[in-house]
């Protein structure tokens, strides 16, 4: 007797990790705010610690349309141009 599989496998997107920085010193930080109540505060606090410990600077803070939506392609392009790495996180 056969079972019929009701599931669908997510279609794998070809992605690769960005090159890891050799040093954290002086990197440019990108922040993605997800619009949750404490999101911005949490990210800025995180960035402050990174600035203090590693001499980083916040290069860009982008606000998503909502927590449910992906980052806009224009924002992704801007992050690529202006930031060395990006921090994203929820802020309930």
């Amino acid at each position: 007797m056969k079972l019929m599989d009701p599931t669908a496998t997510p279609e794998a997107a070809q992605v690769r990790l960005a090159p890891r920085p050799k040093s954290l010193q002086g990197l440019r930080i990108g922040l993605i705010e997800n619009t949750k109540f404490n999101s911005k505060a949490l990210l800025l606090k995180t960035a402050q610690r990174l600035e203090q410990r590693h001499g980083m600077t916040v290069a860009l803070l982008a606000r998503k349309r909502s927590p449910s939506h992906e980052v806009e392609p224009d924002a992704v392009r801007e992050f690529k141009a202006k930031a060395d790495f990006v921090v994203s996180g929820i802020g309930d």
Partner: protein
Amino acid sequence: MRPPAPAVEVESSSDPSANTSGDPSAMIEAYFEHGWTDGLPVVPPTDAAVSGALAAAGLGGSETIGAIPGRNVRVTAGKVAVNAVMAGCRPEYLPVVLAAIRGLCHPAFAYHGPASSTGGSAMAAIVSGPAARALGINSGNNAFGQGWRPNATIGRAVRLTMMNVMNTRPGLLDRATLGSPGKYSFCFAETEQHLAFEPFHVQRGFRPGQSAVTVYASNSLNQVYNQLATRPEPLLLCFADALCHLGIPNVLGFNQSLIVLAGEHSAILREAGWTRTQTQAFLVEHARRRVADFKRAARLPGEIVAADETAWRSVFDDPRDILIVCAGGEAGAWSACLPGWGKKWTRAVTVEVVTGDAEPQAAS
């Protein structure tokens, strides 16, 4: 929580590990073992049953019904049909299930939030138009309750599709803190017997002769009782109060809410000649609390200042965010208020019920 079943590349496959031997109960157990059910037994699907459902929808199975951005998920008609059969749907229900799934995949619904949030929304599927009557979808007594196959199985098919196809499994990408019983199944029809206003789908831009399904992320369900009101104003004050209690999710967000008017309450509005717009405006005006109330309950940040005791804050900023549908029995002083999930970014979506390759009309 059982981990999701390993991916199987074909829709129909022999499973040598399942010792089903033609025994229906063993077959049902095998679906449990794979983690493919909602916790209730499913109807083991057969090629014939799935083909029959697809034929009723005028589809072959490979058609794309929708996709979920960010999850790399593509929903095909064939997979929806398999889950509809598992849910117990008759073949002719599939077009309604597909319309609901199209609604969930619509960009305006912004699926990821309401589907995965700790808020644990039930996805209400509200069927309007001739298909509701033709399929026997209950819109009367016990419209939210048990006892009607199309209501139970269409709603269940939507949830099974969410779990199995749209990657929305409890504990993984379904992070509901409590969830709701409506997450098993939540489908009902709009009544044709005691409408207070024009039909819901007509108000959303469809013709009366069209059939449509509205999907709505229902955060909770609060029955509203009023046996003494004979005029709209006192009756609607009860709804306004239910829409702005201190624990309501939309203190900061101005999200949509759904009102379902049953027969006696619907009659009060109809006999008073109130329009939908008038009713929505009254509710928005009265669904409010003092800023100090919200701050005292830590629903708004900040210290209470003297002005907060007299400053009012509404929980809606647009009357159109209050959706009103008529359903339920004609007797009884009950209606319901179903606060929505999220903020402005998540909208109820209405999709026309179609068969074949017709492009369905959609509105949000």
